């Protein structure tokens, strides 16, 4: 039916959110790699360069960047350009801190490689109470 449910580790129980997926196969930096005024990925050699994460469900292998990356996420959030939720493979410290600081739902550590099963434009529901992510393929 084009609907897949996957289970991971939720960092905090927050209301369920739903939105369109932005998938990056490269790791993502919020501090330096993303424009905190616009939500656009600006890292020069990044696979998703030019795409915008504002209001999306961000799906990526993990966050990267310097230790300032948490502030990058915080500034993005303060500008109203943060994603609705983060779904990733590894829940790296600076990304996790940014999500906690801004009450962004974040689920990580799935059996599957998330960037392989979600595509740009899929509808993704993030239930952080259950640690469950529901993916509805855009062409279904």
């Amino acid at each position, binding site marked *: 039916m084009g609907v897949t449910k996957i289970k991971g580790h939720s*960092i905090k129980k927050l209301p369920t959110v739903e939105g369109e997926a932005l998938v990056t196969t490269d790791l993502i930096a919020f501090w*330096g790699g993303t424009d905190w005024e616009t939500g656009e990925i600006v890292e020069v050699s990044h696979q998703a360069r030019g795409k915008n994460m504002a209001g999306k469900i961000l799906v990526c292998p993990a966050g990267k960047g310097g230790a300032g990356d948490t502030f990058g996420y915080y500034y993005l959030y303060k500008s109203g350009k943060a994603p609705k939720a983060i779904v990733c493979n590894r829940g*790296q410290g600076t990304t996790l*801190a940014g999500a906690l600081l801004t009450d962004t739902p974040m689920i990580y550590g799935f059996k599957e490689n998330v960037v392989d099963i979600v595509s740009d434009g899929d509808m993704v529901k993030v239930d952080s109470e259950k640690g469950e992510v529901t993916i509805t393929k855009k062409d279904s």
Partner: protein
Amino acid sequence: MHLDEEEEMMLAGEEGKGTQKAMEILKAKGEAEDAKRMVKIVYAHLMPPDTMFFPYGRQGRWARDLTGELTKGVTRLKVPATMEPKFVDLAMAKDIEFTDELVKEMDSIMLPAAEFFENLGVIPSYTALPFLIYPTKLGQHVSIAESIAILWYNTMFGSRCERDDGVTSLAAAITGVYPEIGVHLSENRFAEVVIRPGKDIEPARFTYTDWDAYSLAAARKGKEKTPVFVGLPPDMTFTQLKHLLAVIAVESGLAIMHIVGITPEAPTLKDALGGKKPLAEFEIGKREIDEAYDIATTATDPGVDYVFLGCPHVTEAELKEVAEALDGKKVNPSVKLVVSTTWQYLQAAEEMGYADIIRKAGATLTKDMCIAFSGTQVSGTIATDSIKAAFFYTGFSSKTTRRVWFGTIQDCIQSAITGKWQGRR
């Protein structure tokens, strides 16, 4: 998650609002990762946003508010702490295109913040290399906010810290504790992928920038997996290790890596992998190194406007190379050359005569500041020897037109003298 009596008291607000907020932050982090308890830390390295993160405009006010909430009523820290560089040295900020208004605004946010932390007893290290000032031991728990330093404390010392940011490390310094999560636990410290040099490269003959390129190439192969490096020279110097660790720390978001024969938890490959089979093995050859140089090099215009050295801070060995390349020469009037180091290295350079040579050539020698962040104010073409800095110079804004030449200290200095890029294209 179990909290002991003292931790419960901090959470209840018995030690003031700031300490309460700090404990709430650490408890939330512990719960996010299913921690069973807190562990005592012995040291913290701080990254206050109001001293380091563009301390002007609305983000400057956000930073000040964020730190203000966390330090309300806090009069001392529970562990020794050092601190990141400040954003910029205000005395030279105009050289890198900051206006008088911005200098005034930074003066009103950055300097009071720095003074506040100094009054709390923070060691005014203002360094990206805190492991030189406060080295810790195998198995000790710490909280560090600086990507290369996080990787260094775990990898080179075998101490234990997560990828902490400015808020988390400050909370840890205020309370003296940290949730037992991630690489604070032995089972999460093992390598997952193996990185080895290909037969067509010779790591023993690498320049510092080759180490940056090797590091970027390794990050692009291993992505978020913890790597173990094999086949690297056992006598790697401090400065070589600085270059190897700095790039992968940013590019892979790693808290720990291993180097067989060099790092304390990797006497053998088997030890580094915890007896398990690696998920993957990658070889880095000439092709991958060339690709990394190409990624770091975004400039096409041969004209160079700025040459920035010192991300992370230039070491004594590098200051010697800078002085040797500049000895008796003059920086081209169309170029600004900034060499950014720590106050300890600067003091040594003064006594050894390097500082005099560098200044006489017309370069700006600075301390205590972050040239990677403050260097993003300029327009035009920057030459640098740091892939970490190149990442920041070409980032932050979709509107930026700044482009970067990447090459060795010698390439960068020759370019500063001639005004044209002299290195690899």
